[in-house]
């Protein structure tokens, strides 16, 4: 999976978590928290969704890597490169 595809997956997950949010202006370098008002429960959902959809296990100590779109994609790229997008 490419970084572009991973980004699409994250966007799709965020859309599911916050269906009323407009994600078209998302700044990839800025933390999600500053743009979307996600709380810690919602962050857990990004982790849980990745596990549900792609069986990716993300250890708790790595959660800070998921702060922004850019850091999330960078973190996931090596872990998802052999997976097919569904």
């Amino acid at each position, binding site marked *: 999976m490419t970084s572009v595809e991973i980004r699409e997956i994250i966007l799709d997950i965020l859309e599911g978590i916050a269906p*009323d949010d407009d994600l078209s202006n998302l700044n990839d370098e800025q933390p999600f928290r500053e743009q979307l008002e996600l*709380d810690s*429960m*919602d962050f*857990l959902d990004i982790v849980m969704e990745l596990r*549900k959809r792609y069986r990716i296990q993300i250890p708790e100590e790595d959660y800070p890597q998921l702060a922004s779109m850019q850091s999330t994609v960078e973190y996931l790229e090596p872990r998802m490169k052999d997976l097919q997008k569904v």
Partner: protein
Amino acid sequence: MYDTAIIGAGMSGLAAGIRLAYYDRRVCILERHTTIGGLNSFYRLAGRNYDVGLHAVTNFTPKGTKKGPLARLLRQLRIGWDEFSLTPQVGSRIAFPDATLNFGNGLDLLLAEVDAKFPTERDNFRRMLADIADYDAVQPGMMERSAREFVASHLRDPLLAEMIFCPLMYYGNAREHDMDFGQFCIMFRSIFCEGFARPWAGVRIILKKLVRRFRELGGELRLRAGVQRMDVARDSVTRLVLDDGEEIEAKQVLSSAGWRETMHLCGQTRNSQEAARESGQLSFVECISVLDRQPRELGHDRTIVFFNDSPTFHWRKPESIVDLRSGVICSPNNFQYETPLDEGILRVTNLANYDSWRSLQESEYRLAKLSWYDRVVESAVRFVPDYRSHVVATDMFTPTTVERFTGHENGAVYGAPRKRFDGTTPLKNLFICGTDQGFVGIIGAMVSGITIANQHLLQNH
């Protein structure tokens, strides 16, 4: 073998069930009754639909609001804002003999009313608001300090303090006389800073949405499946035994039955002091009147009226069978619907004494209901237009009704006075959610189920 068995198909159990089923857990909700809802349910009687529990959904915030419990729970359950069909209130009132305070959704009207009616409290009230806004629900040790002391440290006029406490206690305080500071802040925000709403067709809209979602995700809901006991080996629940003897195995159990009720189910009451916490004492009667016209046509347009007939508000288990001094008058008609409800309805809720109601024989009980319905309504029409000549149907519930349908000891609507915020129990695979976990109201109950599912049931796989 289930991953999780949930006891009780009320708001908290259903919300927890949705979270677990969404993340592919094998989950089963066990409900003793023939219908869902628990404390917030609905029924049909003589061709009419009635709600129980719900006067209004508190914590209401408009579409697009990103903060607050309603927004959070919609995100967590993947439910769109429109799907609960919430319609905001018209406006509510706190009515005491020497003062009334009107309030709507959001703080504006309440602030204007405080300024007009308690001008010397203007700045004090705003300082109190700032403290409430700053309060962080997870700050340890702060939860249980006295809300009365907190309010008294800000407000000089005891009448204003009593008036503020009246709705907050009626809508979610399990403790007599005083209130935990944490609970006070939660209730203050949910009622005054956020507000009231209701789906046109009542609480059933919300419950049915939750059940549909739960089942679509593969969750199993079993009605007439009361848990009679839980078997324990060492420090874990090993199986649940239903009323009919059927045995159910689950790796984890989440109970919304109440703290003491849950401890009792697994035989823990004798073993630990922690398990034997004091029981709740506060219960209600509610007298429902169906009218031949809309309340508005009688000159009554308030959504909810919280009344008290003296300057001091008494929040205790009453010595008499019903406490007529204070109460809540709710009209489900007075929300901003596009189409009015088919019939006018007024519901009056008063504090009541469980033991007195429990001690009545069947025939005495029926007579007491009749005579106390009259007295309750007589007491209520001191604060709203007299609607007695327009009543076409009535129903009434008492503390024993609450006990029968919720399983709460003493018919204690808001459960035990001490809450268990982290949801843990002495048994390592048993957790509690719902009223005794500590979040109340319809939105609060759902948040309770979600929070405990997230913290304890979803992370450790």
